[in-house]
């Protein structure tokens, strides 16, 4: 470990990091509570998670300046596990998620994230935004106009206050104002307290009380897999955004490992799985947080506020939280992707919309991502499997030249032989492969087949323009399919 570097990451920007950490902590509290309610657990589960993850990631993360905590993407994946099996299974799943992520980091698999195309990432954030928004609709059912107007007031403060001052986070002001109105106006609206208790104490180490059987493992494994994938996807996307904002690089494998360690710790301390947060990280960097210290301060200050002010936190009206979540949904959604949908390549647009559609149907972000990746892989294969064959008569009744252009592989060669005229009256054909590349056995097999068919009609075949790599492949496996006597 480079001590000088570590010192810089921790103490290179003390003032900026401490102030940004405080701002982030204030913004984290309502979100941690709201995400707990989305998942269907006590607010403390999200708050403990945000505390543990932010503190642990400060030490073991690979991207200083990035904020990780309880997130909406993860909360949305847990809903059915909690509904069917309860909190203890969630804690076990959180630990298993962490172990999977540590493995991912140790095996240095961060680079496979580059195979997730941007259209899938855009679909991912759009689906996430829609799901956060729809998760709030239940709070509006059978409510009074008082509740509706409090939500409207929350949103008005969030969006209008920055026009006057940006010194304090507008979401915090909105929550304070709306909570004050609810308390002093003595209006009977639903509060955080109705959704679960706030315990004003530090989390304690606990081993989840579940039966340690294979059956339990098989219950939590699918959830842990989804959580691990989605957590890493959002974390590495956020890391890229922070990389760009700060014009610095980061260690993605270390970050994957760090996310895993943070989730293992969180699970043992009664918190739900979390990951990096795009919104909070942007707030952090904008507030001039750039070091490891800001994440630590955010976590510690959050816990301090809960212990000091837990009595007030339970009185926050649900209307205020719903307002904040609507804002989170609006800012998560990638609006430019809708605006430019008709300008995008058609296949990109289809992949994006499919990703969103599958998430909305399955309520599972990881399934949407997998489907999106598969679909774009198919589109990509279709795109590069276009092979053009042009023919040219070199010498009448004697020699003909075929030029093949494109990538020759299993998907592109299926109808390649159809493009040749085997009944020709020439003596010799030359197949020019200058603008072609042979990729696999199928390519060699197809060429052999073409050669064989020509030879059946007593036409000699010569190849030209084979590049080194293709030549090597052809020599290694060429002639096999012909020899086997098709």
């Amino acid at each position, binding site marked *: 470990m480079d001590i000088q570097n570590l010192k810089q990451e921790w103490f290179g920007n003390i003032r900026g990091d401490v102030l940004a950490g405080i701002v982030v902590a204030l913004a984290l509290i309502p979100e941690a509570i709201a995400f707990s309610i989305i998942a269907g657990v006590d607010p403390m589960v999200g708050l403990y998670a945000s505390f543990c993850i932010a503190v642990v990631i400060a030490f073991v993360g690979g991207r200083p300046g990035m904020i990780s905590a309880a997130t909406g993407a993860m909360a949305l994946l847990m809903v059915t596990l909690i509904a069917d099996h309860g909190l203890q299974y969630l804690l076990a799943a959180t630990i298993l998620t962490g172990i999977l992520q540590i493995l991912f980091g140790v095996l240095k698999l961060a680079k496979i994230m*580059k195979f997730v*195309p*941007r259209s899938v*990432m*855009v679909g991912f*954030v759009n689906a996430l935004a829609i799901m956060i928004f729809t998760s709030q609709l239940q709070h509006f059912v059978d409510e009074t106009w008082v509740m509706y107007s409090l939500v409207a007031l929350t949103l008005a403060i969030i969006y209008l206050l*920055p*026009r006057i001052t940006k010194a304090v986070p507008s979401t915090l002001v909105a929550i304070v104002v709306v909570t004050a109105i609810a308390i002093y106006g003595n209006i009977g609206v639903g509060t955080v307290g109705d959704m679960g208790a706030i315990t004003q104490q530090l989390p304690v180490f606990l081993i989840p009380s579940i039966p340690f059987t294979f059956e339990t493992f098989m219950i939590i494994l699918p959830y842990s897999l989804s959580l691990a994938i989605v957590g890493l996807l959002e974390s590495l*996307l956020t890391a*890229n*955004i922070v990389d*760009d*904002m*700060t*014009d610095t690089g980061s260690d993605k494998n270390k970050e994957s490992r760090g996310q895993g360690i943070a989730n293992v710790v969180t699970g043992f301390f009664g918190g739900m799985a979390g990951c990096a947060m*795009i919104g909070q990280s*942007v707030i952090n*960097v*904008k507030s001039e947080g750039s070091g490891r210290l800001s994440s630590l301060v955010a976590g510690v200050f959050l816990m301090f506020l809960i212990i000091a002010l837990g009595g007030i936190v339970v009185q926050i009206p649900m209307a205020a939280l719903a307002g904040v979540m609507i804002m989170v949904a609006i800012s998560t959604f*990638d609006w*430019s*992707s809708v605006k430019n949908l008709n300008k995008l390549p058609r296949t990109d647009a289809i992949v994006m919309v499919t990703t969103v559609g599958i998430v909305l149907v399955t309520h599972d972000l990881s399934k949407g991502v997998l489907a999106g990746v598969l679909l774009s892989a198919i589109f990509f294969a279709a795109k590069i499997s276009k092979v053009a064959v042009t023919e040219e008569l070199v010498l009448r009744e004697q020699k003909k030249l075929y030029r093949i252009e494109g990538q020759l592989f299993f998907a592109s060669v299926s109808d390649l032989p159809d493009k040749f005229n085997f009944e020709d009256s020439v003596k010799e054909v030359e197949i020019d492969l200058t603008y072609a590349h042979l990729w696999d056995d199928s390519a060699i097999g197809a060429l052999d087949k073409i050669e064989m068919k020509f030879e059946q009609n007593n036409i000699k075949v010569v190849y030209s323009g084979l590049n080194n790599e293709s030549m090597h492949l052809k020599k290694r496996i060429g002639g096999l399919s012909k020899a086997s006597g098709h």
Partner: protein
Amino acid sequence: MYNKILLASDGSEHSIRSAKHAIELAKNFNGTIEVVYVIDGQSSKNDVLQSASKYEIELKRKEKIKAVLDLLGESSVEYEVKLLHGEPGPTLIEFANANNFDCLVIGSRGLNKLQTMILGSVSHKVAKHVECPVLIVK
């Protein structure tokens, strides 16, 4: 007198006009131009989300200020391009003051009228805090 000129650019109409003034200034004083484009957090987020790689991001950003770069390319003036990250106003001020420029050329208004209405104009804040002479192009 004006040898080292800083040109703030965001690809807007105003920044293209500013570029023309900066070029004339540089020609008269035989100076060089440094073009700066500040990328804020929101654009960082959008660009990273919608681009396949960081090379594509850089290409897209240079594409955004292409009109300005074309003008500079056509002129005989020596110039350099720099992409900075942060809030446009403060980042520009910090960069201008740290690098001893002789003059800053900036458009009176940026890309987005609404933003200007909400936040006040970047050029106004910049003019107030930058130490070198500032030419605000209308």
